[in-house]
């Protein structure tokens, strides 16, 4: 179910009313049923995978404290192989077989007869929505129990709700059991200021999605549809707009997710913290998709460096390779992520010498920050061309034509008003994020006197009604 759909407009109030009407002891069941319904609206049969992951992880973790270390390790392997196995089967099998086939073909080996290749139909396997998100979430639980950081949850229903909690089920944030499970067990009383904050966050997310991100998407689609365009400036604007589009689109989802949870008294973790204002790659990845970055840091990077004694460079490369692969079964995502890793490695490797140069030249701090911001954001944004392009070849064609300084024509959507409006909206949203951050946008409203608030509420209606782009687009991160 999409947050920006009429179905959700009906589903959400029913969930809230049911939640507050029911006694505390039954709320988990109500939320669990609602969460499964939320998931099944998209593709009912794929809920089975969610149930398998939940059941396996519940029992593996439950057994862990009472068995020997060796057996504990076996249980962890069962959990990891089940989850990664499902993920591999449903998300990466076609990518893996076609990549192997491509490599063998390159060396002149044709192991798959083209006449029979179609019968495998790996590309026909349906990708379960949000599989990467809930797989990582449930994996973090078993790993934490294995490491002894948390005790296993005994209540199967509460654990199932932790894995499937509808606000964050299909696109995160990837919550830790230590944060979410205690909240799910806690008795929640009606708290009107909290509900108001939640509703404002939902409204903000909706605005970001249907007014800003989808509007930018119109220009982005036009630019990326024709990477051979002679309008090089339009291609530059295309990738810049895409960078903001993906940011606002994902940030919108997270805002609605956090807002939805808040109306029920639950606090989800913030997934963004003004990433566009980062002045280094390391800082960017601490502020962008925070829940995934933290997951990769805690469950992959740390063991690679501490346990397996890999060098930081190798560990960074592996982490970013996995990060790319997590985003999608396509080499474009892997190249995009490795380009990020490259800048991060350069940054780490040149840290001392850069500091020396800055000290010798006595450069002012603001200038250093500005240069850092300009280089990092420019580089990371342009690397997103790989993220958006359907293939590496298309991305390279895009770069080639973008750097072939040609026509300065930018109005490829034949609508200057929409173009200017898009730029204006980016400036407005960035200003708001600069002052309020990503997760306290509600202060823009709650801190005003009543008559100003009412005017803002009314203006919001007019803006959404008249300026929303009616594409009913799914959120970009749903595909992951």
């Amino acid at each position: 179910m999409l947050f920006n759909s009429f179905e959700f407009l009906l589903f959400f109030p029913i969930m809230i009313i049911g939640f507050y009407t029911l006694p505390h002891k039954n709320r988990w069941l109500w939320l669990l049923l609602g969460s499964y319904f939320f998931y099944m609206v998209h593709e009912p049969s794929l809920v089975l995978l969610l149930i398998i992951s939940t059941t396996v992880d519940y029992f593996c973790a439950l057994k862990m404290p009472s068995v020997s270390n060796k057996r504990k390790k076996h249980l962890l392997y069962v959990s990891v192989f089940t989850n990664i196995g499902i993920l591999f089967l449903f998300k990466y099998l076609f990518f893996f077989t076609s990549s192997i086939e491509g490599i063998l073909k390159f060396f002149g080996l044709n192991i798959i007869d083209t006449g029979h290749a179609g019968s495998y139909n790996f590309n026909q396997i349906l990708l379960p929505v949000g599989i990467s998100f809930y797989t990582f979430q449930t994996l973090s639980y078993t790993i934490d129990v294995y490491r002894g950081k948390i005790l296993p949850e005994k209540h199967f229903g509460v654990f199932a709700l932790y894995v499937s909690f509808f606000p964050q089920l299909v696109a995160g944030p990837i919550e830790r059991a230590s944060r979410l499970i205690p909240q799910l067990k806690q008795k929640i009383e009606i708290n009107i200021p909290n509900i108001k904050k939640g509703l404002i966050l939902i409204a903000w997310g909706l605005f970001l999605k249907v007014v800003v991100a989808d509007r930018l998407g119109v220009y982005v689609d036009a630019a990326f549809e024709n990477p051979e365009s002679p309008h090089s400036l339009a291609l530059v604007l295309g990738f810049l707009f895409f960078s903001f589009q993906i940011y606002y689109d994902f940030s919108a989802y997270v805002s609605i997710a956090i807002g939805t949870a808040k109306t029920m008294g639950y606090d989800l973790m913030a997934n963004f913290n003004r990433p566009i204002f980062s002045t280094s790659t390391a800082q960017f990845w601490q502020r962008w998709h925070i829940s995934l970055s933290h997951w990769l840091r805690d469950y992959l990077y740390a063991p690679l460096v501490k346990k397996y004694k890999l060098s930081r460079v190798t560990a960074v490369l592996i982490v970013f390779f996995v990060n790319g692969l997590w985003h999608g079964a396509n080499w474009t995502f892997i190249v995009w992520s490795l380009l990020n890793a490259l800048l991060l490695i350069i940054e780490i490797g040149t840290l001392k010498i850069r500091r020396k140069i800055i000290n010798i030249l006595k450069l002012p701090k603001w200038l250093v920050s500005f240069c850092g911001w300009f280089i990092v954001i420019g580089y990371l944004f342009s690397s997103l061309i790989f993220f958006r392009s359907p293939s590496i070849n298309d991305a390279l064609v895009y770069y080639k034509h973008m750097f072939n300084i040609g026509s300065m024509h930018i109005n490829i959507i034949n609508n200057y008003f929409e173009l200017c409006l898009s730029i204006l909206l980016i400036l407005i949203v960035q200003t708001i994020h600069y002052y309020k951050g990503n997760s306290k946008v509600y202060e823009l409203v709650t801190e005003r006197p009543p008559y100003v608030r009412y005017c803002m509420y009314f203006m919001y209606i007019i803006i959404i009604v008249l300026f929303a782009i009616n594409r009913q687009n799914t959120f970009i991160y749903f595909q992951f």
Partner: protein
Amino acid sequence: MRLKKFILYLVLYFAIFAGIYLFFVDKLANGLVDQYYNKFTQEAGSLIIGLSRADQGISPYVLDEELDGFEFDRSITNFAINAHQSKFGEVYLNAIQKKLTNKHKKNGLFIVSINPSSFSVPKTLNEDKVYENDKEWIIGKIENFTSTPNYDYIINTYPQPLYSGLLRATRDDDHHKIHTNGWTEIKLIGKNDTIKDNDISIWKNKNLEILKKNIAKERISKYRINEFVKTLNYLKTIGKVILVRIPSDIDILKIENESWPNFNTQFDSIANKYNIPYLNYSNQSDKYKTYDGSHLESESAEKFTRMLSLEIKPYLNSK
């Protein structure tokens, strides 16, 4: 008490929201919405079916006038859209069925226009995914094909922000007229300017390039051919079906013939098998003028429809 007041405010807010939204939707629906809207605002007894060539090349006005003395269910609506919205498939067939209301399902006239594009799909799209792909079209997203105003269309498929539709409603395109019977008329002579031969030549060359690119990226779909046959079978049970290939520029035709050399023979044999006339005008490009190589301009569309009416008459019963 505080909670009750809060809920009351929320309900009131959503009511105001819905009210304002419906007010603007209604305002838009009663003006000029977009190029497709008029195809979904009336019940139809007879239909023109196909892609953009039929959308612009066959005028229901002329058919009504020329076939005045003949029996067939009226009104006749141009329900052909374009290659992005109305290729043959379950989705188009379903839309046709919904467009025809029960009371008319007796004696319809169905002019079905075909050309190679009517049967193509992207090479990357598997046959069993074509239906899902077609569901993303306008006719796959709406349920209501016959109401005026058609709120279903605006709420579910209108792709522009509402403000732009409201602004556009006050303007009228000089060369481009969208009639209430679904016909899209393209006029060469406008109030302020005239489309010159040079413009036509440029557009034709662009169109040729697009056609070549599309042919390289697309393939003929068995699914579409099967669904086309199902469509013919359905239409035959409720009226007379005429299969037509509309004239286009000779260079366009050449490319189409190269991409599908036995197109006419194949559809001749399908037409024979189902006892349907196939009127192929593809080689009559010298008699009609297109504005881009593919689509007939207004005067030629009327001239072509008149000639088509003459050929249709023998298949209809007099009043």
